[in-house]
């Protein structure tokens, strides 16, 4: 059962090949036997999952099955889940049982999904390797000595190892797409504002967006249709009808114009990754797409602009963690200030503290114009580059990650090298565009991902491109040896 896609499981449930309870039991057993090696879950919610599965079976018997009825999923531990620990990968929230459900959690539950647990992640979603988690690093199922990428690395590793057919993720600078690329799955970051951020613990509020991670574009379409939509509780969530993302998956690609920015194919790019990307482009050409050389001249400044804007917003968002109303509090504080400072210093890990410090510095008196305002102006230039490009082309493509999954610990001592892991994904968040990563090769036993960027609210179009590619190739069906058929 774990070899099947969400879409196949949906059909199997409808036919009565198995019940939601049988599915949930199967995947929970896999998680319990295999995850100790991967560390992709922070919490397993077996009891609640079986109750949800029984409710799904009962709903089906009554003829009331929702679109996701009985389908097992997992949530990144950044989404609040009522009564279940919501840690955000941090010691700060290790004792935090959320008092409410995030909108994304509510919507997927309303569709009938069964939640098996909460996945591991970089602390407060700050990282590209899943090594900053308080709960320890996640291993890549393709090679247990390597990272799965981050920050949604737990979701990516769990889906890649078929411990769960699909999971939610969040993407602030590449945190869905980069781990999807490094683990050989499909992951989509929607247009900013397409999915509600309510109940999703904030990192950088003008960049954060939730999206689906699964083994195929069709599965991502199914999940996104349930996740997207207006939410009055998030004022940045756009009030605009939600497309049926599954409807246009098969549309022929004839006449599709694919932009190839020269900045996404630098001379320093790993030649094997460039080859896989070009092979994917040739397949799309075969299906009637045309390739157009373009330039996004300002995207080379994406990483520096992001590492001002994201830490600045994070320093403000994370100021709420003060040890008073919830979360970690230090022992025996001497006075109020000591309590704030030691609770925060003991509750946050090294990378989170570095980003809070950079953000505080960038916003502090005398530096605001030089850093924050400048970064916001560069953000506009980057965004304008995309607007101009989309006058010429329908989608923009390139590699998702400049490298294959790297070794655990390889970059832990060098934050700036680590930040470069997101060099091709960050600009998309700054502009607020939708983009996905799809598997497009395996090199030396490690998957390669290709990124498809769409115009605002054209999630349907990038899913169409990925689905057509996946109908003609089998890279998305390649699985790591890990987990086998247990």
């Amino acid at each position, binding site marked *: 059962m774990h070899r099947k896609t969400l879409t196949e499981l949906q059909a199997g449930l409808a036919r009565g090949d198995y019940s939601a309870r049988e599915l949930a039991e199967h995947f929970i057993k896999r998680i319990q036997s295999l995850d100790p090696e991967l560390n992709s879950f922070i919490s397993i919610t077996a009891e609640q999952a079986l109750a949800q599965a029984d409710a799904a079976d009962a709903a089906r018997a009554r003829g009331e099955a929702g679109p996701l009825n009985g389908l097992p999923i997992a949530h990144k531990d950044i989404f609040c889940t009522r009564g279940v620990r919501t840690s955000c990968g941090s010691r700060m929230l290790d004792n935090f049982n959320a008092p409410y459900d995030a909108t994304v959690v509510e919507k997927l539950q309303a569709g009938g999904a069964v939640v098996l647990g909460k996945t591991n992640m970089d602390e407060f979603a700050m990282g590209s390797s899943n090594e900053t988690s308080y709960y320890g690093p996640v291993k890549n199922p393709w090679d247990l000595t390597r990272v799965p990428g981050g920050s949604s690395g737990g979701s990516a590793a769990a889906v890649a190892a078929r411990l769960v057919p699909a999971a939610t993720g969040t993407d602030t600078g590449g945190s869905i797409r980069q781990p999807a690329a490094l683990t050989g799955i499909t992951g989509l970051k929607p247009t900013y504002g397409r999915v509600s951020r309510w109940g999703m613990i904030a990192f950088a509020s003008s960049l954060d967006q939730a999206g689906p991670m699964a083994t195929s574009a069709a599965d991502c379409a199914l999940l996104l249709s349930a996740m997207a939509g207006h939410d009055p509780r998030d004022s940045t969530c756009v009030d605009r009808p939600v497309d049926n993302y599954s409807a246009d998956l098969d549309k022929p690609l004839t006449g599709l114009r694919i932009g190839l920015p020269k900045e996404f194919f630098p001379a320093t790019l790993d030649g094997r990754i460039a080859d896989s990307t070009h092979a994917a482009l040739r397949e799309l050409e075969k299906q009637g797409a045309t390739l157009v050389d373009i330039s996004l001249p300002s995207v080379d400044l994406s990483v520096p602009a992001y590492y001002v804007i994201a830490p600045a917003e994070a320093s403000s968002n994370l100021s709420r963690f003060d040890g008073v109303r919830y979360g970690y509090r230090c022992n025996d504080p001497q006075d109020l200030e000591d309590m704030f400072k030691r609770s925060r210093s003991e509750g946050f890990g090294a990378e989170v503290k570095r980003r809070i410090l950079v953000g505080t510095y960038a916003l502090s008196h005398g530096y605001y114009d030089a850093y924050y305002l400048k970064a916001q102006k560069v953000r506009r230039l980057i965004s304008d580059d995309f607007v101009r490009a989309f006058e010429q082309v329908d989608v923009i493509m390139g590699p998702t990650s400049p490298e294959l999954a790297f070794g655990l610990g390889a970059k832990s001592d060098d*934050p700036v090298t680590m930040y470069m892991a997101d060099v091709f994904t960050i600009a998309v968040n700054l502009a607020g565009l939708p983009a996905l990563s799809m598997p497009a090769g395996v090199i030396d036993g490690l998957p390669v991902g290709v990124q498809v960027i769409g115009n605002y609210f054209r999630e349907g179009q990038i899913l169409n491109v990925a689905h057509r590619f996946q109908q003609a190739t089998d890279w998305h069906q390649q699985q790591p040896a890990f987990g086998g058929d247990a």
Partner: protein
Amino acid sequence: MALDPQALARVAHLARLHLDPTDSAALTDRLNSILDMVNQLQDANVGDVAPMAHPMDVAQTLRADVVTEGDIRAIVQPLAPATEDGCYLVPRVIE
């Protein structure tokens, strides 16, 4: 623009973070390597372009001015490290 340990101490105070003095030099180096990378921005020719705070150039929507949440103290207060009689407890502020 580079941080020295004194500037770092000032920023850490603003962020309400306690720094271990023995880590201060190593942390200063790492933060400066980040600031070096970020300083590429200084060469960007931004002209009079308008700063972009947000991807969607839309006005904040307003909702009706009515109470939407009732009394949730019984739900949220058990999450606190220390409470008494419905109040949050913190170290004494006024001697």
